[in-house]
């Protein structure tokens, strides 16, 4: 389908989008652009001035990104220029991949994509939620919110990978499982539950990477892995800060407080042993350097696969089950 090809291959041509706290970077970038323009126009060498300014930009970026608060991280995780699942798959496989469609029961969910791809000549099953990067594509992808058939499609592909002894990599990027009427009719709860149960027992290595938003059961539904990793500027929790605010404070004004309270950043999730590791993003975030981000993710996948391949299927499944069973803090045991 045409639209998918465009989504997969198109480089982003639109100008950078800047978040509120990135405004100083915007100004510096604009100054640099102006200097470059005038250099071209006037033929006077001001490359040193440009280099100096670029250094300032780098330092400022470092400074801003070293001090992001949890709510700002949530904003970065949703940055429209961030690479989405298909971008990662394209980059990691160098385009050597075959998208597979459909859950074989109801339909093909466009919010959940997947297929076999080659990574350093190894065949891997890639699965993930897909967001769109234009208004039209965002709707086409249902904003990355899968219906039950999306989770069942993901499970079908995982079973296919298991049958042929291929490892599985999932990319998690969703504001949640779709809370629609038909989703309820077709058993959204059952679809997610089934995935948790089945993924727990997959005999092949499973790596799950949160590349953007990891919202609740909709994220966990493809999130049971031997290694669960978060990119540096992503979030993963039981609820979004906005919804948390609206439920606990009865309005949306406490999303910043909620973002802190939920301990949803990669660092907090790792400190609490709820994920296995963090993948560093390029300076200024994955949205500033998408290719670099993809390269870092590819490197990490290869590193983890190498380790996981050394274990037997039984060891992997036991470790996976034990890991999730050890999560939780209770008093009185």
């Amino acid at each position: 389908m045409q639209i998918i090809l465009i989504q997969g291959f198109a480089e982003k041509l639109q100008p950078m989008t800047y978040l509120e706290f990135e405004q100083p970077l915007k100004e510096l970038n604009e100054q640099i652009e102006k200097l470059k323009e005038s250099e071209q126009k006037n033929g006077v060498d001001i490359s040193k001035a440009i280099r100096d300014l670029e250094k300032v930009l780098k330092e400022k970026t470092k400074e801003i990104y070293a001090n992001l608060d949890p709510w700002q991280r949530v904003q970065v995780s949703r940055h429209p220029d961030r690479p989405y699942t298909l971008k990662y798959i394209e980059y990691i496989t160098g385009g050597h991949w075959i998208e597979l469609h459909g859950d074989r029961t109801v339909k093909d969910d466009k919010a959940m994509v997947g297929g076999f791809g080659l990574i350093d000549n190894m065949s891997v099953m890639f699965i993930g939620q897909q967001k769109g990067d234009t208004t039209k594509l965002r709707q086409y992808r249902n904003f990355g919110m899968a219906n039950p058939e999306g989770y069942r499609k993901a499970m079908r592909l995982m079973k296919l990978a298991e049958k042929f002894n291929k490892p599985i990599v999932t990319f998690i990027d969703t504001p949640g499982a779709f809370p629609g009427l038909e989703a309820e009719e077709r058993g959204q709860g059952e679809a997610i539950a089934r995935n948790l149960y089945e993924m727990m027992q997959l005999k092949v290595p499973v790596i799950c990477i949160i590349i953007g938003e990891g919202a609740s059961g909709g994220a966990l539904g493809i999130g049971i892995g031997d290694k669960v990793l978060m990119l540096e500027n992503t979030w993963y929790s039981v609820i979004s800060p906005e919804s948390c605010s609206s439920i606990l404070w009865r309005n949306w004004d406490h999303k910043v407080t909620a973002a802190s309270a939920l301990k949803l950043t990669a660092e907090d999730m790792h400190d609490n042993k709820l994920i296995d590791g963090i993948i560093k993003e390029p300076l200024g975030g994955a949205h500033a350097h998408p290719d670099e981000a993809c390269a870092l993710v590819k490197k990490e996948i290869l590193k983890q696969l190498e380790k996981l391949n050394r274990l037997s299927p039984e060891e992997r499944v036991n470790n996976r089950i034990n890991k999730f069973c050890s999560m939780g803090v209770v008093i009185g045991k």
Partner: protein
Amino acid sequence: MSWFKRIKTGITTKNKEKKEIPEGLWYKCPECNNVMTSEQHADNEWICSKCEYHEKIGSREYFAIFFDDNAYEEIAADLISGDPLGFIDTKPYDGRIRSTISKTGLKDAMRVAKGEIEEQKAVIACMDFAFIGGSMGSVVGEKFAMGVDEAIHHNCAFICISKSGGARMMEAGYSLMQMAKTSAKLTQLSNHGLPYISILTDPTTGGVTASFAMLGDINIAEPKALIGFAGPRVVKETIGKDLPKGFQSSEFVLEHGFLDYIVSRKEMKKKVALSLRMFAPDFVEVKHSEKQGK
């Protein structure tokens, strides 16, 4: 010697005593305004005698309904939440926990016990909606896990009665991972060839629906319970129009293929006991040989 310790000796089975109903109180059905005495209501398993409305009840009542002679031994009764995130919304979570414990007399939103259902060993985990909306946090996950271990240890069935608004926000990531944890435990139960019966009661939503509640070897519901993943208000906001009548009711969920049967609370013990008998002949045989061995 029984395989579990009876909590009381000389148990009486009179409803008035076993269910600790004070005399002289009245119950008014919220659905049809039918008035019954609290005692009549309890004798009728907390079902309205006129319209069959199933009032929400807790673990104490369900244990009384299911366990023979109301005899059972509770497992991990003293676990309480650890507030791992130091969560504060309009009040601190640890304070909320403490005040809910003293208000409800419960330690968290699930109790687990072992006993017998028509002479068949079983472990029952039962959620308490009175405890922060039956929300699932670390304690619910851990008790569920210990319940499954107990069932495996005694080679018996595991039953979970769900009644929950979903995950407990104040435990955030920990609460989310209880979905994974409970599902993981069910794979272990299954690998031992032991049955898991999931009973969904009003309401069962969110993370509980999207994990253990939907994973029963058989899924059962009480009539007219609200069962869904997203809450009705959220679905309504999503589609921007009113929901069809009966949406997300037990009957709706049965019709769409996610329940095996709906049963009135009055018939539930009998039907669950019969269902248990259908699973593995070994259960009956193990029981039988044990008896002969004595």
